[in-house]
């Protein structure tokens, strides 16, 4: 029993190294800030928030991909996971795909005003969907990826939007913006600390350099 647990922990440790660079924390934090900033810009009269989300998200996604590929992976090295882990990753992809499809459906229904009237005490369907999807989506992701910070990030994502939906209450709306920026900022801060630590611990060691050492 202990042997099995030991090997399981080793496998988890190998997998968790993927999240030690803090890039996912920074990426998710920046997205949360964008989710708060875009409606604020719309409120201030700078065009539709959906457009701002796309404009801001694109460079963040590109920066995340580039940092992962050119900075993080060459330092950690690469690993091919066992079939059991690959199955877990497939489950995460299915969750993300499901989450995206449901999100798009709700987005379209909201834009076409088909969901705006359905609600309980001012909490309408898109809001409930937002809270449920983020809490469940992030929790399932945390479970399958052994990435425990995602439980907390699910709560961070779920809390601000209900405040933002209170369009006629300026105070609650402002609290919404503040919570978006605060929680996003906390995630970026956690990610930055992890990234600096990762950068110090894992120096760049290319195979070419290793081969040169061997020749000498």
């Amino acid at each position, binding site marked *: 029993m202990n042997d099995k647990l030991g090997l399981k922990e080793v496998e988890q440790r190998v997998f968790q190294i993927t999240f030690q660079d803090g890039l996912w924390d920074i990426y998710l934090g920046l997205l949360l800030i964008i989710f708060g900033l875009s409606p604020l810009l719309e409120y201030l009269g700078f065009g539709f928030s959906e457009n701002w989300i796309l404009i801001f998200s694109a460079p963040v996604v590109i920066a995340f991909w580039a940092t992962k590929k050119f900075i993080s992976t060459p330092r950690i090295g690469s690993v091919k996971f066992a079939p059991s882990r690959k199955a877990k990753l497939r489950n995460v992809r299915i969750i993300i795909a499901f989450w995206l499809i449901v999100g798009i459906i709700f987005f379209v229904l909201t834009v076409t005003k088909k969901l705006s009237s359905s609600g309980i005490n001012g909490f309408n369907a898109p809001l409930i969907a937002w809270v449920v999807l983020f809490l469940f989506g992030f929790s399932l992701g945390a479970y399958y990826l052994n990435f425990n910070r995602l439980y907390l990030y699910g709560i961070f994502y779920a809390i601000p939007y209900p405040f933002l939906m209170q369009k006629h209450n300026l105070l609650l709306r402002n609290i919404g913006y503040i919570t978006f920026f605060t929680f996003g900022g906390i995630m970026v801060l956690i990610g930055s600390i992890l990234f600096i630590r990762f950068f110090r611990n894992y120096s760049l060691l290319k*195979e070419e350099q290793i081969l040169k050492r*061997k020749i000498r």
Partner: protein
Amino acid sequence: MTNNRNNQNDDKKKIHPLIEIDQVIHAKARLMIMTYLYVVEGVDFIFLMNMTGLTWGNLSSHLSKLEKAGYIVIEKGFKGKKPYTMIHLSKKGRSAFKEYQKNMKEFFNNLPK
């Protein structure tokens, strides 16, 4: 003559159960390498260096011993212009590790309490 030797080996095993432990795997560094390789499909040299904390020379020499025993397969290749070394357990290595695990477990289970 052969029977005598077999009997001697059996006696040795009874006296010293650790004699059945695979010495190629039993070294601390190689046990670490084998454990990491057992839980994944394959890793590159840099990843293994980071996980084990071994130096290049140390890791290289332990990998050579494991390769010589037929426990691991080392594949060298190029990704574009960059060289890479992929390491994974062979079938023999996987079963040797299971056997090692079983033997160690038996040894500790049979210790008097």
